[in-house]
């Protein structure tokens, strides 16, 4: 967390309410955090734009193919404003971004925003499903490991988590397809059924992809949580107090320690999100799920620059905003920060 520089409330103009608000540590920390996110968000737009416009390679000729005449290329360039200087184009694009207009796809008459919106539910469901799976599995596992450190379960978990952390999603995805779709035919290998069409059909098509996304996360969170739990069990005085009360080890773990670990876990979720989103691209490709990542690969192969730009931007902004959100939530959830920071 950012520790804020002390602000002298007396110098703040405005009403007593504003002053009280400004002296509230949560508000101050949050405000600082919000402010520091602005340049990052701007940087994200800049990088997303430059990635697709400043690097070598001519979009117009690439789009039209090698047999396009120079005249065709020129008129196409004008249509795409490719003849204008880079910074003018960035300015136009940024103005659009701010007003929620990411331009129109080159491959279809749809707007980029509507394309992303139509693909969003699939990716969102995938991410949420994977996170739910992750927590359902890794929290109990971590607690059991921390209850008997160096025990047999703990050791097995260590080995498995190391393996799962080292697994590439495409390897895992294909191996699961071989086992569950080809060999046992429990799940379909590819295809997508919308949630609105059929719940069971949807789960059929989404379960395998979500497992692929979840497995590395399970390995990571189990290890992370276990380490945090153990560290607290061994070094925190409040654990000794609880033991002195006669509270059982299980209860100390689940009621006292886990609770404190969850708060730390929150920020980690934000940090993992970028990786998770990256993995959805591959998983959607393997399982032919019409999500944002699938669209991204599609757009890249079609040289549909506005769509690629838009998706890269949306990914970047999502990661920044989710991290911002978890940081702010952290301030709200951790009572120490909520109250104590007024002294810092």
């Amino acid at each position: 967390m950012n520790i804020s520089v002390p602000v002298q409330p007396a110098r703040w103009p405005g009403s007593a309410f504003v002053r009280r608000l400004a002296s509230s540590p949560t508000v101050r920390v949050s405000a600082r955090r919000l402010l520091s996110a602005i340049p990052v968000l701007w940087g994200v737009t800049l990088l997303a734009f430059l990635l697709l416009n400043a690097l070598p390679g001519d979009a117009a000729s690439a789009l039209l193919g090698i047999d396009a005449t120079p005249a065709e290329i020129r008129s196409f360039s004008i249509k795409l404003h490719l003849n204008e200087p880079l910074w003018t184009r960035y300015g136009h694009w940024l103005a659009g971004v701010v007003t929620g207009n990411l331009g129109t796809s080159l491959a279809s008459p749809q707007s980029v925003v509507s394309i992303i919106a139509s693909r969003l539910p699939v990716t969102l469901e995938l991410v949420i499903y994977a996170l739910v799976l992750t927590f359902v599995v890794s929290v109990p596992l971590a607690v059991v490991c921390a209850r008997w450190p160096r025990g047999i379960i703990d050791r097995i978990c260590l080995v498995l988590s190391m393996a799962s952390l080292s697994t590439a999603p495409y390897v895992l995805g294909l191996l699961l397809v071989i086992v569950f779709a080809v060999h046992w035919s429990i799940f379909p290998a590819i295809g997508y059924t919308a949630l609105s069409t059929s719940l069971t059909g949807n789960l059929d098509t989404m379960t395998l992809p979500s497992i692929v996304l979840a497995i590395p996360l399970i390995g990571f969170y189990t290890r992370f949580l276990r380490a945090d739990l153990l560290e607290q069990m061994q070094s925190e005085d409040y654990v000794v107090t609880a033991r002195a009360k006669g509270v059982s080890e299980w209860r100390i773990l689940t009621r006292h320690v886990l609770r404190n670990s969850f708060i730390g876990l929150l920020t980690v979720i934000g940090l993992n999100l970028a990786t998770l989103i990256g993995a959805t691209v591959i998983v959607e490709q393997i399982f032919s799920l019409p999500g944002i990542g699938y669209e991204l690969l599609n757009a890249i192969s079609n040289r549909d620059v506005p769509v690629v730009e838009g998706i890269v931007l949306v990914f970047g902004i999502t990661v920044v905003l989710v991290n911002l959100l978890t940081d702010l939530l952290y301030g709200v959830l951790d009572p120490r920060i909520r109250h104590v920071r007024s002294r810092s």
Partner: protein
Amino acid sequence: MSVPAADLLASAPAQDLRAGAAPRARGWLRNLEIAVPGTVLVVLLFFCFIWPLVYHVPDPTVGNLFQVNLPLWSPGHILGTDTVGYDIMSRILYGGRVSFEVAAAVQLIGLVFGGLFGMVAAYRGGWTEAVMMRILDVFIAFPSLVLVLAIADSLGPSETHVIWALSAFSIPAFARVSRAATLRLRDQPFVVAARLAGTKTWRIMLRHLTPNIAPQMLTFSLLGASLTIILEGALDFLGYGIPAPTATWGNMIATGESFISVYPRLVIVPSIFLLVTSICLNMMGDGLRARWGVR
């Protein structure tokens, strides 16, 4: 892309994963934790780089259409052949070369540029650091695969371009690690003493900071190498990496995918090599981190 050991380290240097390194064995067992993956890696490196020089290995890009789809353990083709008659063993060895080359190059670039970036940021502090860190935040905001994909696509397919593209993720990651490590050193008495004695900044960085952050950087580069190999494979798999006839593990998995229900081994064999390599690199990194007491 495999999730986070390295990614997280890169983005949250304050998190102590060492405590998370889970049950730590003692004595010989701890040595084993480093020795086993180390041996496996050495064996792999030997077979990828040296074996083809001393022993005849079939050309990985010349198929024999009379010998397609040979099963495992066929004479002359230990791991069989694929649908166009390429020898799988030889493709694995040459593919491994690519993986290790790319991983090493990307780590080296990350180590030098990222390391310097992070060190300068942490050592200068203040506004310089704030601005430099915001720049890193921008890079880290993008999913590494997406960032790499966009760059690799713009640059066009080739091994060098893949290396540059992957560096876009490794430089910020190394920068994070090096900054965190430098921050812990910045106010240590020996650094302050050097500064007070009028030692030049570059000299402090080279002689005082670099040796002290080296363990962090080296263990991280092992985790980073594992991640790089996976990401490089992902690029190949998606068709934006090293172009097809070249043997790479990612390309092998990608072509194997089309025949997954008929010849699953076309996917399974390269997958196993990829998995083993990446597990060994991770284990080495982890084991060394524990041994050196690196946070």
